[in-house]
């Protein structure tokens, strides 16, 4: 049961033209851009140049698009090792904005944009919203967080460039979100899917039924979700729910989006070239086979990413889509090849938690991260085993320890967490090693 404005989705936005390029023309464009990108990175990024030389390669060795598979991978730790500016390919006076996202330890990774990068970002976000059937006249409530996180500003600039009316409400403050959603006649919302369900339930408690409001589209991302959750959202709120994909290392949101066919996410591959590789061996896999998504930026100036290992597991779908777009699709991200998890839209690595615990205690205690969902809001609890070194017969001393751990965690992770001291040897170990993350959230909705 959807609201009857689906005809508006047929409006064609000129920015979406590259979505429909004939494949041979697209491949030519990709190759031309790739050559330029690799030359740019080779000339200006020492890290990349050394990697290429290590393999006996120069940009001239790139004679066709498939030659891309000979280039070295870039991994998350490369970003950490070159913190903060080491991978920049332009001088700082060409960088007009910096964003950051969580790294694998306490330090974030820094993402720079030139003016041209910001323009490309807006363009792919226009194409994103257009694919979801949005256009000038839509009122977009942008509930992604504004700030260092790429979600807020990425969606904001895209919706503005589309010609829609943007409400830059940012994340949080559920009561105000509901009031604005109702009073401002919002037609589209951007947030995490779990937060939207939370909004919808809280609204219902106040007697506000989203099915009665003009809201018709949700652009949901920054966390994994399932078809079952989509069905639940669409049934309970009467909107069309779209899965959006992106990552800061590549550009932010706007790497891929579902079209109205809701059958995989189109990757804007004229800017971000996708490959699938075997996560263990790194060997390229053919379209249709599941593996790790690897992305190469084809136009990014400030920080080109060559063959970036996303750690997201998916499949590349080459067959034509019923919507007419020729750019390839990926299946919804089902899982990760590392132990990163996402909570309230924020990427967290267990190694960050370890850094925080180490900072607080001096040694690393046994710990476990327990993720739960209460009333559609994610909760993260870090259970820490009490060691003889930190144990005290005084309640106050243990409460102090608890607070110290909490502060250290919040400082590193930048999100609210709970800490629970637990008895020794209560956290399960398999082969001597503790299972770090216990995800008890029901993503099935």
């Amino acid at each position, binding site marked *: 049961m959807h609201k009857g404005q689906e005809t508006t989705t047929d409006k064609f936005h000129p920015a979406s033209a590259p979505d429909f390029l004939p494949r041979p023309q697209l491949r030519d464009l990709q190759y031309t851009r790739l050559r330029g990108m690799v030359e740019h990175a080779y000339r200006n990024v020492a890290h990349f140049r050394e990697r290429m030389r290590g393999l006996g390669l120069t940009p001239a060795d790139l004679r066709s698009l498939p030659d891309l598979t000979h280039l070295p991978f870039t991994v998350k730790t490369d970003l950490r090792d070159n913190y903060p500016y080491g991978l920049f390919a332009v001088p700082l006076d060409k960088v007009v904005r910096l964003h950051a996202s969580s790294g694998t330890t306490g330090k974030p990774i820094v993402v720079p944009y030139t003016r041209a990068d910001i323009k490309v970002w807006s363009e792919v976000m226009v194409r994103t919203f257009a694919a979801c059937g949005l256009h000038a006249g839509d009122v977009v409530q942008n509930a992604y967080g504004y700030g260092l996180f790429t979600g807020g500003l990425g969606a904001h600039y895209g919706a503005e460039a589309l010609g829609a009316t943007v409400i830059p409400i940012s994340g949080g403050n559920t009561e105000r979100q509901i009031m604005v959603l109702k009073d401002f006649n919002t037609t589209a919302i951007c947030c995490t899917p779990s937060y939207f369900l939370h909004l919808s339930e809280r609204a219902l408690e106040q007697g506000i039924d989203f099915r009665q409001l003009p809201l018709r589209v949700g652009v949901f991302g920054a966390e994994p979700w399932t078809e079952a959750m989509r069905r639940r959202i669409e049934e309970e709120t009467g909107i069309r729910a779209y899965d959006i994909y992106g990552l800061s290392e590549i550009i932010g949101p706007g790497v891929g989006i579902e079209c109205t066919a809701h059958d995989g996410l189109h990757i804007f591959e004229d800017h971000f070239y996708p490959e699938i590789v075997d996560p263990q061996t790194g060997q390229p896999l053919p379209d249709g086979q599941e593996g790790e998504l690897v992305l190469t930026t084809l136009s990014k100036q400030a920080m080109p990413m060559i063959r970036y290992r996303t750690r997201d597991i998916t499949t590349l779908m080459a067959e034509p889509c019923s919507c007419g777009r020729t750019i390839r699709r990926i299946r919804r991200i089902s899982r990760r090849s590392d132990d990163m998890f996402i909570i309230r839209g924020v990427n967290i690595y267990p190694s960050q938690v370890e850094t925080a615990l180490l900072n607080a205690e001096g040694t690393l205690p046994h710990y476990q991260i327990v993720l739960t969902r209460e009333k559609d809001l994610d909760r993260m609890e870090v259970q820490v085993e009490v060691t003889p070194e930190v144990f005290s*017969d005084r309640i106050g001393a243990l409460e102090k320890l608890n607070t110290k751990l909490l502060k250290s965690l919040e400082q590193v992770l930048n999100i609210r967490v709970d800490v629970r*001291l637990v008895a020794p040897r209560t956290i399960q170990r398999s082969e001597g090693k503790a299972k770090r993350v216990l995800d008890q959230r029901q993503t099935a909705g």
Partner: protein
Amino acid sequence: MKIKQLSVFLENKPGQLSGPCRVLADAGINIITMSLADTQQFGILRLVVREWQKARDLLEQSGCVVKTTEVLALEVPDRPGGLADVVNVLDQNSINIEYMYAFTFGRGDQAVIVFRFEDVDAALEALRRSKVGLLDSEDLCRLSER
């Protein structure tokens, strides 16, 4: 005069207390006195036993975190003002009490209070100069077996 007290970390959930109790029971170790401090999340079981080293080792072997602390046991007349007199001595000497717990051994005239002081030696010295009755661990054991 100082008495060894064992503290055991417990999570605040059902069944947590039975483990340490069973360990001591199986070894035939009698608990002379105890107290349980708790918060919403966790608790601390404090124990005074005769064979404290053996108890500590057994508890640790069973997986508990155990902390050994020195406490003082004072004999306090079981009448109105009995405790006030003792606390008065502590106040006059600026002695900080971390926590305390009281019991009677079923005697009508005297109660026993275990005190955990911030500075046990300073407390001991101050109390020795006063008329407060200090008990050592032998006294405690004897009282508990009467």
